């Protein structure tokens, strides 16, 4: 148990410091650690937990604490919450001081723009990896495709899309 908590702490503290561009970019590495390296969850379970984390309000960065809770109960939840938000928050605090002084430096724009291809590639990889766990049958692929189109074109609320997906899953007996 202690070893598991320590592993969770190390993994998520590390992920916290490299999650440029938000939480979705680190999903591939999170999945690699949680599924492939430590075998805490199956790819299917990982996909389900990711889906659950999207169904909650607020910042959609909470799949980590949910995994912690699933793997090691409330201690896991607490450890991952601190590990996931602590290091990046401390970094934010330190950077705030520097930022106030560097307001008009051109390097800021370069750094911001330079990270765009990286974060784009990471989100694309995340989508591909989530798809291998979630879109496993023809029916589920169809649900994913419909949700993609709905999210791209419609002005539907994300909860409506998720609800429709869940409903389609039940009525079509998918997965």
């Amino acid at each position: 148990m202690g070893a598991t908590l320590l592993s969770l702490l190390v993994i998520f503290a590390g992920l916290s410091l490299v999650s440029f561009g938000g939480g979705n970019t680190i999903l591939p590495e999170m999945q690699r650690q949680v599924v492939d390296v430590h075998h805490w969850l199956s790819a299917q379970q990982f996909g389900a937990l990711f889906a659950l984390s999207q169904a909650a309000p607020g910042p959609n960065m909470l799949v980590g604490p949910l995994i912690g809770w699933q793997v090691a109960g409330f201690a896991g939840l607490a450890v991952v919450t601190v590990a996931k938000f602590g290091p990046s928050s401390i970094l934010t605090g330190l950077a705030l001081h520097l930022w106030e002084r560097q307001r008009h430096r051109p390097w800021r724009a370069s750094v911001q723009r330079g990270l765009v291809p990286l974060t784009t590639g990471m989100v694309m990889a995340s989508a591909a990896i989530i798809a291998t766990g979630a879109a496993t049958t023809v029916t589920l692929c169809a649900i994913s495709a419909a949700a993609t189109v709905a999210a791209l074109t419609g002005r539907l609320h994300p909860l409506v899309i998720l609800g429709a997906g869940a409903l389609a899953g039940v009525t079509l007996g998918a997965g």
Partner: protein
Amino acid sequence: MTTPGPLALFRGFLGIGMMGFGGVLPLARRALVDRLGWLNEAAFTDLLGLCQVLPGGNIINLSVAVGLRFAGIAGAFAALSGLIAVPLAVIVALGGLYARFGDDPHLRHLFAGLAAAACGMMIALALRMAGRLRGDPAACAIALGVVAAVGWARWPLLAVMAVAAPLGMLAARRSRAKPAAR
């Protein structure tokens, strides 16, 4: 412009954490600038710019930055806790349902459909982000390289970032030097 203490910061971000699914940022702007009046438009944009360059969720970092600015470390802690308190409780409740009833066939189908829909929303996000790279071949090449390394070869993220981040900044520099190419 008022100066909120830790309790006000907790309550303010508690409200923000309960609103919005997926994209909290527009709602956060409305709350912080219009409703609470803690920041003006320029200060909000400036803080958000900082939060976007740093690792971590933009809105998470924003809560820390706003809390820190108004009420120091206690304020940062209060704002962040407020932001994630309700979503965490909701997620644990949903996770409990999944852990207990996940084996029931109906619920298994429900969660499978939910996961497929969430996956579709993720694909949509990826497509939208990829669309923004159009007309920038260097950026496209870097993004595809990252996809191959992270998604297919499953290389460790840090190693990929150590290569892709400097390359991206180099490419951004060069395309700034040649504005005609954009």
